[in-house]
């Protein structure tokens, strides 16, 4: 048991990333306010980037740009996760934009940001 706890404390970046992911996921899933849902989405994605960046970093090594003619891979950190983070950010930005556009549409039509309220209005319109 104590092993698990010490593991959580040693890898505190990863622990923190997972906690953030949980917060974001829950917010996106359960919060009725559309804007807060979008915030949750961004927190969730950011948690993943934190996790990736933490995993790519290797203690005591340099940024992966060749300086002083040192071409040995052992002196640099892993550049791939950073690349994945960049790709992920682009994806998350576009998804956020679509969600925001949709929120504007919903707000103009129903004058509320509360998704539960919107569902209620739509159901009433149907009957």
């Amino acid at each position, binding site marked *: 048991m104590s092993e698990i706890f010490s593991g959580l404390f040693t890898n505190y970046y990863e622990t923190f990333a997972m906690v953030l992911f949980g917060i974001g996921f829950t917010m996106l899933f359960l919060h009725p306010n559309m804007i807060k849902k979008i915030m949750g989405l961004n927190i969730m994605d950011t948690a993943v980037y934190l996790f990736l960046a933490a995993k790519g970093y290797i203690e005591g090594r340099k940024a992966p740009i060749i300086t002083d003619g040192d071409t040995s891979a052992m002196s640099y950190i892993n550049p791939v996760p950073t690349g994945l983070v960049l790709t992920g950010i682009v994806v998350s930005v576009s998804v956020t934009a679509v969600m925001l556009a949709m929120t504007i549409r*919903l707000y103009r039509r129903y004058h509320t940001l509360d998704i539960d309220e919107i569902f209620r209005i739509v159901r009433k319109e*149907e009957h």
Partner: protein
Amino acid sequence: MEIFTNIPCISIVLCLMSGVICSVLNWKAARIWTYTVNFLLACASFAVLIYTISTGEAFVFRMGHFSAPWGNEIRAGILEAVLAMFFSIIMLFSLLAGSKHIEADVKESKRKYYYTLVNLMMSSLLALVYTNDIFTGYVFVEINTISACGLVAIKDDGQSVVASAKYMIMSLLGSGTFLISICLLYDITGHLLMSDIKRAVGELLATGQYVEPFTMIISLMTIGLAIKSALFPFHAWLPDAHTASTISSSSILSSLVLKAYIVLLIKIFYRAIGWENILEAGINNIIFVFGIAAMIMGSVFAAAQKDVKRMVAYSSVAQIGYIFMGFGIGTTAGVIASLFHIFTHGAAKSMIFISLGGIKDVSHHSTLFKDIKGAGFRNKAAGIAFSVGAFSMIGIPLFPGFISKINYAQAAIEVGHGKMVLILVTLALSTILNCLYFFHALIDLYTPTDIDEYETLDMYGEREENPGFIKARPLYVSAICGFILLNFFIGIKCDLVLELLSKGLGMFG
């Protein structure tokens, strides 16, 4: 013949480019461009199919000429080629048949963007089928989500925007889960290409390292993609999204989008993680239970609906359950049965949605059971299409659904034990439920009514000359003929399809 290996990459890039091109053309040109592109894609995929059959093995195409551990790869075999061909044919037929409804449902200024979205959707479908890189898979999953939500929301009435928002939220939960599982997998194995991941996973599991994280990764991945492909109990978004959108969108969403995620999932299972590791972790049993639950609950929900379109949407939930159940059996026969069911359901469900568009035109613009009485007489093409689709879904001989059910039953008997009994009982029960609600709709469709009672308006609100009947539109009728031929082809030439699928699965892993 080396030149054929370029086709998958060119197809994906062509679709992405067409998306951009369609956004600057006027909508009529965009429409013709999209038809042409889809037709070319079907031909090109056929060429890939012939090429892979003649060489007898899958080929790997290096994107950007960097080889294995660093570069990005496309990998195509028989299975991928068949799927790509099937996807582009269904896409083409759905667009052809629904073109008038798109005109009626989408504002003129936005019509060209409909075709933009369709092209982006097609590129993501092809990429999900062909890619060998797990992160590329994630990126195209998101492109697919965005374009699918766009296809729902573009109708721009309240219902469709709300349905689309709901769809988007659920989809994003799924892709978030999928993304974190990819990151964990990369963290453990250090690779993004599926074949390399499999090797690394094999080495790690042989030494007994990372067993728990590994189970966690497979679960997250499965849940993420199951949410996106609407496996019960994650299906809440599906009925709204499929009911609210214009008929071409409904048919594309139900037959292609759901399937693309399933193809990605099975590809990851086979190629990245290794089927034997999945069986060892026991994940297939969990999928099996969810699949069985979906088969029953989807049909129960469907039987309770008042709206035929909603009923058909719920029936998709049940059919997705069939597909997951087949993977859950855990034998090759089960997987092949499920792959076959992807084709069965894709061909039949898209046709049913298309036919509902025609039925709606002659039934006071509604698809409620009380309004569709006698619609099979008023719009004959739509009536026939609905009947063929319904027969296939129920599983009447000659139709592909029958072959699917036989395959499942055979796979069940092969596996024996408790699973056999459970599958056979569920199959029987699900078939009865299918009969129950599809025959309800069929009987209503062919109940004679007083035709004068229905003032038949065409989609622009103009009265038809011949009251009660709708003029047959050549494009709609020919697309429906195409769908019916496709169904009969899969149903009658099932040996050929099954042989291709089993060969394809052999070179898949």
